[in-house]
């Protein structure tokens, strides 16, 4: 295994992440938690856009639906967070699955526009259904308690996010390495060829939208609890641009790239927070630079110069290693 390969690097990062609360101040812990939440969003979006090739713009809305459902169930129905949180993820998943229906008939720009219209409609509901959503002013959510564990809320929430991110990264890697991942890429590369071989387009598009909605809904639940406040502006068009930028900068069609993109964008935005106006300029400039000069994102540079950064469905350029014989060579020749 390559020393600086993605597995070793991410194991090291996970180990560091485990001890962050021991030396981080509350602000650093907040930023670290934010990176974890955006990692979930970027992975979900990358599965939908990067692997399944569905140019959708509804991820910010899904993020909002997860946050609002989690928060509102706590406020209106006194649900405990531990029940409201999975409900939020579930609602976002179901709405994600429903979004696959227009995706069956639409693609490219038309799909982008229809999902954008859905996102704007969601914003309208957040803003104007005041009786339920509290309108533009938003609402406070009850603080989670980790009793009887002897940890504060920020530390507990950070570890909850970390455990979820690790589980969701493993899940995403397994999905992509399976026949589902291959079917996603087949749908992305050529829908007619995929359909002609029996790839069920509705099933796999729905799966991609559902997984993406589940990741965004989960991230929304964590986000609502991290801020203890939910308001519409957190889930607007800029939020969508932010998430798209993460997968472009990290690497489209890469789980590792999603993690790198989320970390890079959040850390950059936080580093520039003190300099007025610099956030927008640097963020926009970086996005343009990647789109023009580095379309494969950070992960494409790592793939080119560092061994061990290939991922499932992303390693066809490399020749088979001599110690890894092709599958056919290991199979007994069938009788004629």
């Amino acid at each position, binding site marked *: 295994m390559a020393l600086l390969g993605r597995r070793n690097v991410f194991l090291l990062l996970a180990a560091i992440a485990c001890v962050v609360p021991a030396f981080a101040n509350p602000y650093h812990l907040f930023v670290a938690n934010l990176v974890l939440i955006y990692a979930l969003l970027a992975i979900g979006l990358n599965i939908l856009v990067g692997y399944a090739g569905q140019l959708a713009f509804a991820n910010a809305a899904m993020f909002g639906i997860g946050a609002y459902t989690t928060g509102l169930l706590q406020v209106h129905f006194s649900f405990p967070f531990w029940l409201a949180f999975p409900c939020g993820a579930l609602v976002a998943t179901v709405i994600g699955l429903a979004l696959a229906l227009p995706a069956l008939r639409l693609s490219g720009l038309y799909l982008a526009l229809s999902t954008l219209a859905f996102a704007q409609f969601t914003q309208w509901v957040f803003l104007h259904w005041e009786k339920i959503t509290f309108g533009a002013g938003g609402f406070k959510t009850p603080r989670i308690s980790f009793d009887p564990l002897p940890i504060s809320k920020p530390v507990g929430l950070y570890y909850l996010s970390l455990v979820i991110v690790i589980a969701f990264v493993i899940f995403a890697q397994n999905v992509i390495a399976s*026949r589902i991942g*291959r*079917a996603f*890429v*087949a749908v992305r*590369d*050529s829908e*007619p*060829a*995929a*359909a*002609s*071989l*029996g*790839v*069920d387009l509705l099933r796999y598009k729905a799966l991609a939208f559902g997984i993406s909605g589940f990741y965004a809904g989960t991230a929304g639940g964590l986000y609502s609890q991290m801020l203890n406040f939910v308001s519409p502006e957190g889930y607007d068009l800029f939020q969508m641009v932010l998430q798209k930028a993460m997968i472009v900068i990290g690497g489209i069609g890469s789980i590792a790239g999603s993690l790198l993109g989320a970390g890079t964008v959040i850390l950059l935005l936080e580093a520039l927070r003190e300099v007025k106006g610099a956030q927008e300029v640097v963020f926009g400039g970086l996005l343009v630079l990647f789109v023009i000069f580095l379309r494969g994102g950070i992960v494409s540079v790592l793939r080119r110069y560092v061994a061990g950064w290939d991922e499932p*469905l*992303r*390693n*066809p*350029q*490399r*020749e*088979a290693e001599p110690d890894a014989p*092709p*599958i*056919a*060579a290991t*199979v*007994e*020749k*069938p009788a004629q």
Partner: protein
Amino acid sequence: MLEVRHLKVSYGLTQVLHDVSFDVPDGKIVAMLGGNGSGKTTLLNTLTGLVKPAGGSVMFENAECAGLSAYDLVRRGIVQVPQGRDVWPSMSVEDNLFLGAVTRHDRAEIRKDQANVLELFPKLMPKLRRAAGSLSGGEQQMVAIGRALMARPRYLLMDEPSAGLAPAIVSDMVDTILALNERGLTILLVEQNIGVAAAVAEHAHVLQNGEIAFSGPAAGLLDDPAVLRSYLGR
């Protein structure tokens, strides 16, 4: 036996296929010839569930199949090798082949079938982990056929397999089609290349403006004045 009767297909108000009827008997190679825009690909897409027919019947082994989904038809054993190869370029050859078996769940048998495909196309063996899009046209055609074979078809519907290939590769393709037929596959070959059709098929039909203009034995196809008149316009 695949029996097509009075098949009609329309795209909106435009009728593309008019009352098309023909048979593909078990174990045979049947060619469907025609120029650009004659409706060949639409016919193939209708037979493989990608296009819904406006009327008519498609009987496969005494069961009505018209209007079934591609998924159902693949599971019944009707599989298409699409026009222009249409391999998934960013995926490895191995992943392309495995995806051909997307409707199957018998892992051991899938691996055996992959070994069979590589026996048929040994050139693919050293390139299993290469991106399918980086292969030559002939090799991509092998991947496309191999991918379809991974679905364990009984009827293979091939859409212009010789298109865009060098003459030497076309000759290999002819050998491949004959070898597949010898292994028991029934083949409906949609072609523009009349020479390829004459070399492999026992029976041929000529499609013109969405209608079958000629049907007869494929042998001597090139000498038949009716074919030359309807297909080549001579």
